[in-house]
């Protein structure tokens, strides 16, 4: 079963706009990761946020984590056509586990 669930399933925006994707999960976690997958490629790690962190930045990416609501969001600012991809959140299968459980992903399309 999949622990994390992304929302929306698909998102289409104009280049330069911001894109926000959300992830909800079911059980307590000690960290949450976001990955990107370009069409026909493997997944690429974007950012890891630990349970004691509320917000984390990496370049144009901003990730938030709200453990009380069991949710996380990924914000991409000033989007580019190259950001077109599917974005997945991933959570440990169980506390302290090295196994990751992925959601179904958000398919982002950035229109030039």
């Amino acid at each position: 079963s999949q622990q994390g669930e992304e929302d929306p399933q698909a998102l289409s925006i104009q280049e330069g706009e911001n894109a926000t994707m959300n992830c909800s999960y079911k059980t307590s976690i000690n960290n949450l990761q976001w990955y990107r997958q370009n069409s026909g490629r493997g997944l690429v790690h974007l950012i890891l946020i630990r349970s004691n962190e509320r917000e984390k930045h990496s370049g144009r990416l901003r990730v938030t984590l709200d453990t009380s609501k069991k949710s996380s969001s990924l914000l991409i600012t000033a989007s580019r056509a190259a950001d077109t991809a599917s974005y997945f959140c991933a959570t440990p299968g169980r506390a302290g586990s090295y196994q990751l459980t992925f959601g179904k992903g958000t398919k982002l399309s950035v229109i030039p």
Partner: protein
Amino acid sequence: EAGVVQSPRYKIIEKKQPVAFWCNPISGHNTLYWYLQNLGQGPELLIRYENEEAVDDSQLPKDRFSAERLKGVDSTLKIQPAELGDSAVYLCASSLEQAGTSGANEQFFGPGTRLTVL
């Protein structure tokens, strides 16, 4: 530094035929994963290796799937016989997991093998 290497990239076979996928992880990574990804879905774990030991294979359909990681480096995933429903992308990933960490470090993925069973 070379990334995770997988071969072949694409494979088309007829049902009931055997098929094998190969993965070479990033040098020094002790943990290797095989995932199955169906169209429009996220990856689902099939098996995880710590060095040469399979530590989580609960999602591997053992009647037709098998995997090995001899010498704790590269790995092979086999399906015999393949069924129509096995058509998917098979992803390999690796990571460096260290005792005492809080678990689930960054995983590095290969490009995957896209399997089509006719």
